[in-house]
């Protein structure tokens, strides 16, 4: 296997005023994204961006033509293509761009941006969407989640949630927020940051109760989003499994917010993850001995009975021959 030399892309999302830029500025300052990083900032409102962002980044692109998950999508694709093009003109042995951090506007759905990048025939060859970081405002997130479907989609798309402004938030309120976030997205790692600086997060006590979130019209009529774990058989047939998962995503992709897991295949440990109908190209992970979380896939979604997933998969893996 040749190593993957594609550009890494970190997507930074979060609701309006949730502290995305503050967090990013500090991360760039301490070099958390490595030395050769390009920052792409999308502003839904056409406001000038702080030059302070440029410190620590190799370059910056401002996308001011509207939110890049909808009206500004063309502009975003074009900007990313230019970056890929400039990088491809350099030899692989030269020091060239390693990473892009794309800060979305507060109104963007990260899943839509991932879908746009992976649906572009040029970008999919050059860019790996590595992680979706979502900033969550510890003070206001509960109110937003109660009323905004967008806020819930952003949380649902996260691989990593950064709780911001936690210093101004009462411990009990913070625990409630974390329990509520866990009901929306149980697989993302959670950390805290105050003005971008990593802050310690106390262990979540067992008696922290989530706030029941009201239904927001049609989307939630199919029941609450819940995680389901499906254990895979030891001698998994990867081809049959992909047939099943692609059929499932085709039929139920809008209900399956997230599918994530590590599979053992003949080629090695494969990290599989999807956001709605989009499957990220599976990555081969380094061997780490036998891990308990291998061969378990987590499905996060709604609109089906949890036990049906396992039944359906076993049905697909052992079809009865009728001819």
């Amino acid at each position, binding site marked *: 296997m040749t190593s993957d030399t594609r550009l890494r892309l970190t997507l930074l999302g979060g609701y309006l005023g949730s502290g995305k830029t503050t967090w990013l500025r500090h991360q760039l300052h301490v070099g958390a994204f490595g030395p050769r990083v390009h920052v792409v900032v999308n502003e839904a409102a056409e406001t000038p961006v702080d030059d302070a962002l440029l410190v620590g980044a190799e370059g910056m692109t401002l996308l001011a033509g509207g939110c890049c998950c909808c009206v500004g999508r063309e502009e975003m694709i074009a900007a990313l293509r230019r970056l890929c093009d400039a990088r491809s003109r350099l030899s692989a042995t030269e020091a060239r761009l390693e990473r892009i951090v794309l800060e979305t506007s507060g109104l963007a759905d990260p899943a839509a941006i991932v879908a746009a990048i992976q649906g572009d025939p040029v970008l*999919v060859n050059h860019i790996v969407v590595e992680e979706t970081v979502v900033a969550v405002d510890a003070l206001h997130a509960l109110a937003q989640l109660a009323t905004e479907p967008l806020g819930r989609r952003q949380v649902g798309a996260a691989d990593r949630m950064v709780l911001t402004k936690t210093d101004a938030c009462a411990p009990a309120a913070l625990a409630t927020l974390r329990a509520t976030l866990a009901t929306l997205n149980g697989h993302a790692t959670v950390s805290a940051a105050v003005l971008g600086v990593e802050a310690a997060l106390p262990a979540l006590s067992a008696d922290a109760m989530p706030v029941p979130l009201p239904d927001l019209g049609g989307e939630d009529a199919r029941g609450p989003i819940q995680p389901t774990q499906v254990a895979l058989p030891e001698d998994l047939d*990867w081809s049959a499994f992909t*047939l099943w998962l692609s059929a499932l995503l085709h039929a139920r992709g809008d209900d399956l917010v997230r599918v994530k897991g590590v599979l053992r295949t003949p*080629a090695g440990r494969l990290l599989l993850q999807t956001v709605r109908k989009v499957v990220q190209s599976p990555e081969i992970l380094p061997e780490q001995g036998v891990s308990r979380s291998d061969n378990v896939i987590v499905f996060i979604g709604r609109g089906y009975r949890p036990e*049906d997933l396992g039944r359906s998969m076993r*049905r697909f893996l052992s*079809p*009865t*021959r009728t001819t």
Partner: protein
Amino acid sequence: MCNACGNPAAPGHWTEAGAATPSDRLRARFHRARVLDDILRPYGLTAHDGGVVPGIQLGTMAGASSIVHNLSEVWAEAERLRGAPIDPLDPRYLDDL
């Protein structure tokens, strides 16, 4: 890339991960077509991958056929040929064991 048919456009569909060498990939294609054929038979459809023509050939018992490029397209096309949705979580499908 073949300039007559434009394949392959994308750098490997995600379902093709895990097969590193060309022979592995070809073997995986044959195997996948066989499993897919088993799955589609109860729906009155057939699947075939000869290994030469790019893509998977889907057909109906009445003789209609079409070629699809990857598994994401298979299901949309199978539904079109069949004229009804294919849902792996359909209770009728699950109970037909």
